[in-house]
């Protein structure tokens, strides 16, 4: 086992990569379940947080568990409300682990299909930021609708928001947009292109 690890550093098992990226040692989790008990969306998740932690604990030896964690809907449902981290008796930063899982799933193209809308929203959001430096709400919502296909959702809200002055038709822009493009090029884009 350990010999293999040294032979293929890229094949470091998932728990090790999580430790490296987040500093969270999943072995410390003793499965008390307090995170799942307090998680606002545990009931919607395929694997509540404590189960994700357990999947990660076993993922080193059982690749199928690593797969289950990566393809979970949970990672995308996590709201980063931090209540699990706040109450965890072992002080494990579970939201950070969820971040790491999302990044890994994106890179390996293993995003749970149910998370399509959430991902579309995030991408639309960042696209807006990439181009203007700030969030252009109108543009983003349109972009999101195109990506998600939910054309009719919220259609009735928009005119009202426009009326009360909450929606602008033109984006606000950052002056140094080239720099932002560089930041995006060196982070998100570079990462997504990496095998």
């Amino acid at each position, binding site marked *: 086992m350990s010999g293999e690890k040294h032979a293929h550093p890229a094949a470091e098992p998932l728990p090790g990569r999580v430790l490296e*990226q987040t500093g969270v040692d999943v072995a410390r989790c003793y499965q008390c379940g307090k995170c799942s008990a307090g998680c*606002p*969306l545990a009931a*919607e998740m395929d694997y509540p947080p404590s189960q994700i932690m357990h999947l990660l604990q076993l993922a080193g030896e059982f690749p199928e568990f690593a797969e289950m964690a990566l393809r979970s809907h949970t990672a*995308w*449902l996590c*709201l*980063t*409300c*931090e*209540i699990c*981290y*706040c109450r965890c008796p072992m002080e494990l*930063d579970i*939201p950070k682990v969820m*971040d*790491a899982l*999302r*990044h890994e799933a*994106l890179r390996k193209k293993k995003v749970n299909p149910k998370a399509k*809308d*959430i991902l579309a*929203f*995030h*991408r639309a*959001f*960042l696209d*807006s*930021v990439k181009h203007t*430096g*700030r*969030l252009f*709400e109108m543009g983003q*919502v349109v972009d*999101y609708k195109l990506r*998600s296909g939910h054309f009719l*959702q*919220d259609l*009735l809200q928009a*005119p*009202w*928001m426009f009326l*009360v*002055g*909450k*929606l*602008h038709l033109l984006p*606000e822009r*950052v*002056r*140094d947009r080239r*720099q*932002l493009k*560089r*930041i*995006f090029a*060196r*982070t*998100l884009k570079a*990462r997504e292109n990496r095998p």
Partner: protein
Amino acid sequence: MKTGFYPGCSMKGSAREYSESLLAVARVLGRELPEVPDWNCCGATAAHNLDHDLALALPARILAAAEKKGMDEVLVPCAACYSRLKVTRHELLEDEKLRQRISGLVEADYRGSAKVVNIIEWLAAVPDLEKLVKKPFQRKVACYYGCLLVRPAGIVEFDRPEEPQSMDLLMAKLGAKPIDWAFKTECCGAGFSVSRTDLVAKLSGLILEDAVSRGAEAVIVACPMCHLNLDLRRPNIEKRAGKKYDIPVIYITQVLGLAMGLPPKKLGLQRHKVAVKFAPAESPVPGVSAKRGA
């Protein structure tokens, strides 16, 4: 002490009234709030969901700009932006290598000299705030902190993560009667406003239900996202719950403005989805659309 102001994207758009009320109040307090020069979006949930470095680089660029301008602290009224900026500062100051890498990304040597301050901290530091109160806001209010003002406790180091009190104390100064309720720090659904409206309706519904059942007349917030979910998404909440909620959701700065006797319109109260009106003694605040829904 030079304080910079980071409005964040929503305060320029959907949460315009938060910005309007803050600036109106600041004017009365005699505080100048210059914006952080050429600020960009903090990246919000989307950035840290998709890329770690990006999630740090975007806030780092903001903080570096504030630093360069010689700002000692940056006021970040949006709780979500506050969290991103605070987390970034914490992580970069903890890890020298990371600080160098991100500094490289944002093409500035970020040092961490500017502190990140939230709206409650900023207001709590104003001396004799109660002396400025002209019309005490004599309402039973549910102070809603949400997630990101108080968590993760080790990083934000503001108030206590369970049963926080700072906003309640501030409201009491303004003459309000903060109620003891159970959902002060529960999550409203945050970044799912658009992508998972169903979940927002569920979580925000629980919050309204608890506030209303304990006799609150208004929910006080310090976060545009919370406001969006609790106010703009009210139709979705009501649809899911199968009942009507009339309770208005008011920004902390709007309450302060009202207590100071500023005109409601200057505070942007007319922009709310749910009319800011109180039964029965007080008449509806003028200038607010009485029509509900759309």
